[in-house]
């Protein structure tokens, strides 16, 4: 949790405070970018751009919103806008996946999903569903914080999250069966 005093000092023009602020949020910014874009270099670029934007727009942050939801809004916007243009989204059907094939495990105890598989599956989700999942699980945002960050109604947030999880579990079932179903 970032100290309100640090934010105020940064807004008042204390450059050192502003740099300290950036250091405090650096990881959370990168983390979101990484899971949204599924690509390390893109994530580094997006995270840097987000930090610059926080730096230059610190004056526009208003206390009525939580600082971290404001920061996450900036990084999610950058990721959705800029990089969707750069990298066309790959539809679920077209993407070719190589996974270790597993035996059909119907009736047996299912193994936990591998992080790698989950990450890939998240990358298959539509932008807004993906963003909700990342904020929920990588940033531990509540429904309300997600709603504030993405400027969405609460019900929409829930419905995106449920839909996303439903899609993810279907995708992961397919992965575990050794490939993407057409």
């Amino acid at each position, binding site marked *: 949790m970032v100290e309100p005093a640090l934010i105020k000092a940064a807004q008042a023009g204390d450059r050192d405070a502003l*740099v300290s602020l*950036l*250091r405090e949020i*650096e*990881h959370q*910014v*990168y*983390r979101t970018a*990484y*899971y949204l874009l599924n690509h*390390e270099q893109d994530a*580094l670029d997006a*995270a*840097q751009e987000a*930090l*610059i*934007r926080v*730096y*230059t*727009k610190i004056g526009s942050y208003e206390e009525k919103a939580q600082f971290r939801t404001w920061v996450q809004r900036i990084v999610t916007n950058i990721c959705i806008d800029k990089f969707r243009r750069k990298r066309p989204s790959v539809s679920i059907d077209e993407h070719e996946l190589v996974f270790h094939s597993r035996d059909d495990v119907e009736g047996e105890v*299912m193994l*936990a*999903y*591998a*992080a790698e598989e*989950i*990450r890939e599956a998240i990358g298959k989700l539509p932008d807004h569903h993906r963003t909700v*999942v990342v904020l*929920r*699980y*990588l940033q531990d945002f509540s*429904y309300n914080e997600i709603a504030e960050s993405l400027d969405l109604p609460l019900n929409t947030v829930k419905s995106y*999250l*449920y839909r996303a*999880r*439903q899609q*993810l*579990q279907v995708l*992961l*079932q397919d992965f575990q069966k050794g490939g993407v179903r057409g």
Partner: protein
Amino acid sequence: MNCQEVMELIQRHVDDDLNERETSLMQDHVGQCPDCKALLDRLVRLSEGLAQLPRVEPPYSLVDALLPNLDKYEAEALAEETATMPSNRRRAASRRRVWIARISSVTAVCVIVAIFAVNGSIFDQMGSRSKEQLASKQESANSEVFFAADASSGSAELRATDQFGHPPVEGSAQQKSPDASVSNKEGASGSKSNQGYEMDTGTDDGMGMNALGGRSAAPDGPSVMEFANASGEAISPDGAWRAVLVEGVLILYAAEDGQTAFRHDPSPGTISNLVWREDSGALDYTYTDEGGRSTAQSLLVPEMKISMR
């Protein structure tokens, strides 16, 4: 409970969003429905997997990488923000700036009116008075533009100067021609003329004339007159219209009442080179699109239509 309804309960359960009653409803159904049981298991497992995703960190410090260039980014961001401001914000910003420009042009007119209203013998007194006022003004903004009233052989002339009485540097406001100001006079009189600029006219001890400070209301903006004039402004030959370019947005005012007659926001392209036709039937200008290609266009008046040339 049917499976459809239970699906929602299961999702909410994963978020600890169920009360006791709802939880037992769900458990009851799931106890009897293998499909829903399987779904519950998968979703719980998924949620755990999601919660355990690695908290990745950047391979190097992003802030360290940014530090050498932070000032440069700030300047770039400011430039970009102005160019790409969404049209409603830009409209509000340009509206505010145009409003300020109008106030200052009105005030400029008041000065001229005041000058004409006073006897020639007072001009010298007025001239030196305003220079005194100029010298005593302590303005921090280095882009301030002042108008020093200069009397020479009975004709009043407004000269744009900075706070030291020097002519403004290149790029800042150019003085409107007296003709143009006169045509504004008709439109200006009676409209907002008392926005913090005090004009004393007709007092016996001479003109309480203020050197005009071209001050923008927004603390971050450059001198107001720079906006009104350096961006581009053109009065139609018949004096009926005043075309103003503010940050690439073309606005046409009726000179008579100052009403906005037409507004064209060509973003992301820009407009430049305003030139009125002699018959005042059209305003020619250059439209440059975001790729840098320029075309000649015209605004037909009074139809208020844009046509290509």
